[in-house]
C-alpha cells in the first residue's frame, strides 16, 4: 500500500512551505530517518525527514514548488506499485495548490499565470480582496496536527479561519474559543486595502509590479499587525551617555584579537538583562486573562535579512557573561543569515532589542515583538555637545534609546524606571552590579 507524504508544519507558524531541494529522486530507496527534502518555511530552511521506509515513487511538488501544510508532496511505496488511484483524487486539487501564488484560493482555477510576466506591467489587483488574506482551502485537520477544542473547531469553520494559522493558548497548545475569537478580531481590525495608486509615469529603473507575498513576509505582516493593533503601545525615550559603554567595550576588546572583538549589541543585551532583572514586570507577557512574568530573561535581537527579518533569541541573559552572550549572538546571527535557525531559536523572546545605529538612525520607535511586552529601539552612538560644569559645552557620545511598551502589562512609571536604570548602566557600566 503506497503512502502519501504530506507537507508538515516544520515551524510553529508555518502555513505553507517551498521545496528548496529534493535529496531523493523518484525510484530511490528511502529509509526511516532519511532527509527526503529541504523545505523553506516562513523563517528557515528545514530538513524534511520521513518516518516511513520504502521507495520514493512519485514527487508531486517539484523543487521550487509550494505546498500548504497537509498538501500531498510525494508518494512512497513498493517499486512498481500502481499509485494512479491514489493520485487521482489528489491531482486536481493539489497540483493547482502547488502552482498557485501565495494567498490565492486553491479551488479557483487560476485565470492567468500567477506571476506576471516581467515585461508586462501588471494591473493593480483591483478585483482581489486584499484586505484579508483569502481563506485557505478547508483541509481535513487530523488530530495529530493540531489540538483544538470542539467549540474552537466549529467556530473556526463557521468564520472560515484556518486553525493552523492560530496559536493555541490552552493546555499543550490546545486552540480554544478565545484564540479563535482573537484571530477573528485581529482579522477584522486589519487595515483596509489602500486605494490602488494612481498610475504614475515610470521612472528609470522603476516599474509597477505586483510581488507575491512570501511566507516570511506574510508571517511578519500578521504578527506585527496583530501586535500593533492589539497591544496599546506607548513610547519612552531617553538619551544615554554612551562613553562608559564604549570605554568598557574598548577595554575588553584591547585584550582580544579583532576576530574576537565583542559587539556593542552583546553589551546592550547584558545591560538590558540586568535592568530587566530589577524590573521583572518589563520581562512579561500579556495573556488575555493573565500576565506571565517570566523567570528567565530571553532577549531577541532583530536581524535584517534580504527578504525580511528574524529575531534570534539569546536565552538566560542574566546568568551569562557578555563574552558568552556575544559568542552565542554571533552564531545565531550567522545562522539567521543562512536561513539555518531552528524554530525554537527565534521564538519566545521575553524582550527584544532592535538596533538601527549602523544605518546612522538617530532614534526610532519599534513595534513590540510578541510574546514580549516591550522592545528597545537603539539609535546610533554619535558625538553631541551637552552642558558641562559651569555651563560650558562638553562633547559626549550620545545614544538614543526608545522603549515601546505594551500598556496592558507595563505602566508608564514601570517602563520609565527600567529605562532609567538601563540608561545609567550604559553611562556607568558598574551600575549594573548594584
Amino acid at each position, binding site marked *: 500500500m503506497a503512502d502519501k507524504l504530506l507537507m508538515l508544519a516544520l515551524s510553529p507558524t508555518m502555513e505553507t512551505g517551498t521545496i528548496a531541494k529534493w535529496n531523493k529522486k523518484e525510484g530511490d530507496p528511502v529509509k526511516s530517518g532519511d532527509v527526503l527534502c529541504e523545505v523553506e518555511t516562513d523563517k528557515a530552511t528545514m530538513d524534511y525527514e520521513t518516518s516511513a521506509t520504502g521507495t520514493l515513487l512519485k514527487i508531486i511538488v517539484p523543487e521550487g514548488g509550494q505546498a500548504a501544510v497537509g498538501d500531498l508532496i510525494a508518494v512512497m511505496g513498493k517499486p512498481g506499485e500502481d499509485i494512479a488511484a491514489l493520485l487521482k483524487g489528489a491531482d486536481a486539487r493539489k497540483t493547482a495548490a502547488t502552482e498557485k501564488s501565495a494567498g490565492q484560493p486553491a479551488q479557483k482555477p487560476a485565470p492567468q499565470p500567477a506571476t506576471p510576466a516581467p515585461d508586462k506591467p501588471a494591473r493593480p489587483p483591483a478585483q482581489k480582496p486584499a484586505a484579508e488574506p483569502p481563506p485557505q482551502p478547508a483541509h481535513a485537520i487530523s488530530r495529530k496536527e493540531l489540538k483544538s*477544542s*470542539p*467549540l*474552537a*473547531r*466549529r467556530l473556526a469553520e463557521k468564520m472560515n479561519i484556518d486553525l493552523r494559522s492560530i496559536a493555541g*493558548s*490552552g*493546555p499543550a497548545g490546545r486552540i*480554544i*474559543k*478565545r484564540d479563535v475569537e482573537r484571530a477573528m478580531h485581529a482579522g477584522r481590525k486589519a487595515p483596509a486595502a489602500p486605494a490602488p495608486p494612481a498610475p504614475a509615469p515610470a521612472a528609470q529603473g522603476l516599474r509597477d509590479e505586483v510581488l507575491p507575498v512570501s511566507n516570511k513576509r506574510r508571517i511578519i505582516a500578521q504578527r506585527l499587525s496583530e501586535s500593533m493593533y492589539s497591544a496599546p503601545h506607548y513610547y519612552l525615550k531617553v538619551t544615554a551617555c554612551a562613553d562608559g559603554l564604549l570605554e568598557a567595550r574598548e577595554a575588553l576588546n584591547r585584550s582580544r584579537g579583532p576576530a574576537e572583538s565583542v559587539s556593542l549589541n552583546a553589551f546592550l543585551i547584558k545591560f538590558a538583562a540586568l535592568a530587566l532583572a530589577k524590573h521583572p514586570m518589563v520581562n512579561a507577557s500579556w495573556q488575555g*486573562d*493573565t500576565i506571565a512574568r517570566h523567570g528567565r530573561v530571553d532577549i531577541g535581537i532583530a536581524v535584517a535579512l534580504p527578504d525580511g527579518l528574524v529575531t534570534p533569541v539569546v536565552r538566560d541573559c542574566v546568568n551569562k557573561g557578555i563574552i558568552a552572550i556575544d559568542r552565542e549572538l554571533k552564531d545565531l546571527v550567522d545562522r539567521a543569515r543562512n536561513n539555518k535557525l531552528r524554530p525554537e531559536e527565534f521564538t519566545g523572546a521575553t524582550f527584544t532589542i532592535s538596533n538601527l545605529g549602523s544605518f546612522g538612525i538617530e532614534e526610532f520607535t519599534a513595534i513590540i515583538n510578541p510574546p514580549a511586552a516591550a522592545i528597545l529601539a537603539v539609535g546610533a552612538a554619535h558625538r553631541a555637545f551637552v552642558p558641562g560644569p559651569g555651563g560650558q559645552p562638553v562633547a559626549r557620545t550620545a545614544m538614543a534609546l526608545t522603549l515601546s511598551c505594551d500598556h496592558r502589562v507595563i505602566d508608564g512609571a514601570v517602563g520609565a524606571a527600567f529605562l532609567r536604570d538601563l540608561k545609567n548602566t550604559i553611562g556607568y557600566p558598574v551600575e549594573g552590579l548594584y
Partner: protein
Amino acid sequence: MPVITYRDAVRQAMDEEMARDASVFLIGEEVGEYNGAYKVSQGLLEKYGPNRVIDTPITEEGFAGVGIGAAIAGLRPIVEFMTFNFSLMALDQVINNAAKTLYMSGGKVRVPVVFRGPNGPAEYLGSQHSQALQTFFAHCPGLKVVAPATPYDAKGLLKSAIRDDNPVVVLEGELMYAWKGDVPAEEYLVPIGVAEVKRPGNDVTIATCSKPLRMTLETAAALEQEGISAEVVDLRSLRPLDDETVCASVRKTGRCVIVDESWPVCSVGSHLASIVSNKCFDDLDAPVELVASEDVPMPYNHALELAAQPSAERLVAAVKKVLYLQ
C-alpha cells in the same frame, strides 16, 4: 410570600396531600409520637391519628415492604427512612419490588409509593451515616428520584411524588431542613423531571442538585465579582434526568462543571458528564469537569470531613480550569 423552612415545606406537602386524599399515609421510625427524628412530621399524628401516621420498629426492610404492599393494594404510602443510610437495609424492597412490579405485571400493577428522608453528608456522623446515596436509586429503571434543594422545590416535588403512580424516591437533607425560602401560600406542584436554571449566566454552566446548590449559588455570586458569569442549573430530578436543560445551557456557555456530593465513580454526576460530553461535543471549549466528594468513606475528623466534600474552593478551581484561567 411566606418564608418557611425546608422542614416545614416537606411537612406542608404531606399535610396537604393527606388532607386532600384519604389514601395517603405516613409510615416510618419515630414519625408519630416523636414527631419525626428531624421534626418533619410535627403535628401530623395529632391531626390524622395513628391509622395514618404509623410508628414502626427498626425494621427498614419490613416497613418498606409494608408500604409497597399497601401501594399495590391501592393506598398511597409515604415511607420515611430516618436517613437514607438506613434505606440500604431495604434496597431489595425498593429495587426488586417497588421498581419492578409494574414491568413484571405487564403494566397491570402500579406501586404509587414514596420513599423519603434525608440523604447526603451532614456533620460529625462518621462513614456509615454520612453518605450521598442517590446513585443507588437513580441507577435503577422503574424508580423516579428527586433531590430538591429549596423549600419551594421540596414542597412542590413531594406533592408531585405523592400523586405519581410510580415509586418515587425523594431525597432531602439533614442540613437543609433548617434552610429557609419563599413558599407560596396557595397550592402548587413542581413537575418531576424538569430542571431549573437557578441563576442565569454566560461563561460556564454549573449543574448541581440538592445541598450543594447553595454553595454553588454563593460561589457563582463570588465569581461574578471576578467577572465570571456562571449559569447554575438545578437538576431537581435525577431520574428522569432533564439533561436537555443542562445541554441547552452548555450550548450557550461552551463549558460545563458538575457538582455532585456523592462519590465520583458511576455517579449521577459522572453520568451527566458523559451525556453533556456526548450531546454537546461540538459546543465544548473544554472537557467537562466533575466536582464530587472524594472517592473515600467519609472521615470522622471534621477537617477531613469537609475536605472530602465539594467546596467553593474546588468549584472555583474547576470553573477556572474550564475557562483556562489557571
